[in-house]
């Protein structure tokens, strides 16, 4: 099939960007979206035009590298699907496909569709861990964890850190990302020891990065390729209130 692509081009962080239009023929329905961009890039290089830059690595929906807003939808039209797992059979011959990078103050554009997501790493560094030095762990079975809790913790822990939640949020909030980690660790006994300090530090960092505040549109969870459940955010809110009013942390 033939597509009319409208893609955001921007040479670097300082440059002005703009949408450019490309015609692309010979797109097969079995291609993934990124494979479609691959053949576009092959064509562009042939014509002497700089290829479109986009982040990608695993191409199986787990590394969280890829992502773009396709016709206004984060990771495209499918649910629970990363851009690399989106297939062209979702589009029709002659479609116009508009492709834009994640838009957030905290995610400056590096080039074209590539953005800088290191803000997420800094949020994680603020407290998204259990402080257990290598070698000091007790036997793994010493602490039974109810199966439903383990399953729930996994649902949160499955976050791939792609940034789609921020991109989808009308407020540019990073709540689902931050909450996924907070809720994952708050659900497991291993994470409970540091829960108060963790949530205070992570939320403070999240705010410092310049993300917006949640007003509960729930677009994040709908766009999330892993379907991280929205109650993660309620859990984080609860943890935050708990840490603020009931704990001795952060006096």
């Amino acid at each position: 099939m033939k597509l009319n692509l409208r893609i955001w081009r921007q040479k670097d962080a300082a440059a002005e960007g703009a949408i450019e239009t490309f015609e692309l023929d010979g797109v097969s329905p079995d291609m993934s979206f990124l494979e479609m961009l691959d053949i576009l890039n092959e064509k562009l290089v042939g014509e002497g035009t700089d290829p479109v830059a986009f982040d990608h690595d695993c191409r199986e929906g787990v590394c969280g590298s890829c992502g773009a807003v396709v016709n206004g939808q984060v990771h495209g039209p499918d649910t629970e699907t990363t851009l690399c797992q989106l297939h062209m059979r979702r589009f029709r011959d002659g479609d116009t496909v508009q492709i834009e990078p994640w838009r957030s103050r905290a995610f400056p554009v590096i080039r074209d569709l590539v953005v800088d997501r290191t803000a997420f790493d800094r949020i994680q560094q603020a407290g998204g861990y259990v402080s257990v030095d290598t070698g000091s762990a007790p036997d793994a079975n010493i602490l039974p964890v109810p199966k439903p809790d383990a399953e729930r913790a996994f649902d949160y822990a499955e976050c791939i850190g792609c940034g789609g939640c921020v991109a989808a949020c009308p407020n540019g909030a990073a709540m689902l990302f931050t909450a996924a980690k907070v809720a994952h660790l708050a659900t497991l006994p291993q994470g409970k020891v540091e829960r108060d300090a963790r949530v205070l530090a992570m939320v403070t960092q999240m705010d410092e990065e310049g993300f917006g505040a949640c007003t509960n549109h729930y677009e994040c969870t709908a766009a999330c390729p892993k379907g991280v459940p929205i109650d993660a955010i309620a859990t984080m809110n609860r943890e935050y209130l708990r840490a603020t009013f009931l704990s001795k942390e952060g006096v």
Partner: protein
Amino acid sequence: MLRWIDRFANSSIGRKALMAVTGLLLIGFLLAHVAGNLTLYADQDGSAFNAYVESISALPILPLAEAGLALLFLVHIYLAVRTTLENRKARPVAYQATGTHGQKTLASTGMFVSGVVILGFLIKHLLDFRLRKAEFDEAPHESIVEAFQHMPTVAIYVVGCTALGFHLFHAIQSAAQTLGFNHPKYTPAILWFGRIFGIVLALLFASFPLVYMVKNGGTH
């Protein structure tokens, strides 16, 4: 000292929690308010309503309650404006194509707009009654009859109540989530309760001007 309060009140979650609490307390006020107003339907001559207004006016803590109420509004509005502005800044470059994965609603995206309309209506409401307190207290029911004979006033009230309906349609369930309550067993119920509650409350409030207009014949 008190650093923790500062941190809380300036954090995204803290601010939202304060909005939720002030919002819920405002809803509490609205409930009391609508209950009082229902005395308008208790009889034909408005004596029940007059008696109700009199008993309220006589309450010694009324000034305090009013000040508290004003504070609730101010805090809620201040936080709303601040959050809205900061959220806009969080996305300096807008998307050219807009789309959704289907969760946001008109009510959720329009919270600020509905809030501003409520505020506008509130000012009109205060001008109509609270700022003419002496006149009003003299003959409460007359004042009502009088006020709702003006079509523009009725229209403004209806718009204001509609905005309130929109606001609450999203707000109640949102407040529960903000305050950390989300449970697979109860959240769906809260969602629907909140939506219905918002619509019913708005309808009740809107009914007063409408009923009075119809009953007494709207003029100019």
